[in-house]
């Protein structure tokens, strides 16, 4: 390529062909932690394209129903499309059944929707958090093509490699002898999310600017904003 450029004058060369990729990595990191009567879901607010920061205040946790929220990151164009279609389907469900779609049903539907695009996937990492029919906090984790797993806590997105081991250790007490996992309280969950994002922002350029932490309980939703480094 470089040699061709030197050898031939530009009018002898073929017109330059641009490469087209339908996907783009836009960063973003999300965490969700479930408790007995609550669930917390958080994401950073940075949107990137390569070394550029496109936005410092792009919320990535999307409200779906009164007690369900989804955090998605990856290819932002796919996030926008997936979330639009998902919200439409939830609305259609509520019109058809005259009730809000339960978290468990939303969770299954998301998996199905992702798998339907198995051979041209939504390039998106998702976590779904909500309250189940008993009011207990639940977290679902997805891969881009619809594999689904229910977990007590999960991280996804750009900084998953930094955060998931921390959660495994602190919330799950995994990979250690003679330890029992702690009881997940709201204070503990909030502290873990806070520390995880601070650490991730130190090490990963795709995570930063701010975090919005959402808490879902029977009483409703609350949110808190935490600042992160902006460089």
């Amino acid at each position: 390529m470089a040699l061709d450029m030197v050898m031939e004058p530009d009018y002898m060369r073929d017109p330059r062909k641009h490469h087209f990729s339908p996907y783009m990595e836009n960063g973003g990191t999300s965490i969700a932690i479930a408790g007995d009567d609550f669930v917390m879901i958080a994401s950073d607010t940075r949107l990137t394209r390569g070394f550029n920061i496109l936005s410092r205040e792009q919320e990535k946790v999307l409200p779906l129903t009164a007690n369900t929220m989804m955090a998605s990151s990856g290819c932002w164009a796919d996030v926008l499309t997936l979330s639009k279609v998902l919200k439409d389907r939830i609305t259609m469900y509520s019109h058809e059944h005259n009730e809000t779609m339960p978290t468990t049903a939303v969770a299954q539907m998301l998996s199905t929707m992702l798998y339907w695009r198995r051979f041209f996937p939504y390039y998106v990492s998702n976590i779904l958090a909500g309250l189940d029919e008993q009011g207990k906090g639940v977290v679902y984790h997805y891969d881009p093509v619809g594999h689904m797993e229910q977990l007590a806590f999960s991280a996804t997105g750009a900084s998953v490699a930094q955060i998931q081991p921390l959660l495994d250790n602190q919330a799950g007490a995994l990979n250690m002898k003679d330890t029992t996992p702690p009881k997940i309280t709201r204070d503990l969950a909030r502290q873990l999310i806070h520390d995880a994002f601070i650490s991730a922002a130190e090490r990963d350029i795709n995570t930063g600017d701010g975090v919005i932490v959402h808490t879902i309980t029977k009483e409703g939703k609350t949110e808190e904003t935490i600042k992160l480094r902006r460089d």
Partner: protein
Amino acid sequence: MTDTRQLCVMMAGASLSGMFTPNLWSGGPAPGQLYNFPASKTQHDSKTHTMYPSTSGTSVVGLVYDGGVMLAADTLGSYGSLARFRNINRVFKVTNKAVLACSGDIADYQFIREVIEQKVRDDEIHGYTPELNAGALHCWLTRVLYNRRSKFDPLWLESVVAGYKGDKPFLGFVDKIGTAFEAKEVATGFGVHLAIPMIREAREKGNLTKDTARKLLVDCLKVLYYRDCRAHFKYQLADITPEGITIHDDLDLKQDTSWEVANFIRGYD
């Protein structure tokens, strides 16, 4: 390659049809299905015209200031490295509440402009009273561009939508694959590297009034003219306030630039 891609697109479009119930609107797609946008082929055969360079425009820069939104782009249509057309307008007043400016393939921009113009006329003659506002146009563009990228026939554009959404100023970005966001300052092309940091820095120093905003925008264009080989000194600037939209055509920043230092550069002759 072609087979895999066709399979991808077919699976994405066809396999969804009929599995779910109703369409979003009559003649429209079911959620998640691909919508047939005007002038796009129904069979998913990749077209090549957008894969080649043809006439293209460089950066667009926009910012929100106290009391409005401002947007600027130069008027050069480059053909590769040739400065082919020096008077191409690519800032477009859509309605009294929305302006669209694009960089990328000029042909694709002119195509989408015609579609939007027709859409605005249709809205009007069908008695759809609310004027297409910037938020709606931005949202619509994300769908059109995402739809085309999903057919592997993208519109090679990076667009900036400026205007009002209700009574709030709006400034948004969409690119050829449908990546979209809203921000206080938006740029495309080289503007992302050169103009955005200038605007963010200026904003940290204090409020942007109409005057400072315009000075800042012209400064950005000047830096782009100095450093971006595909930039030009002639430009258009759009100012959007609640009172309406003013587009200044045929502006010129040549008299503000100085190439004195060029005489001192050694080593390239």
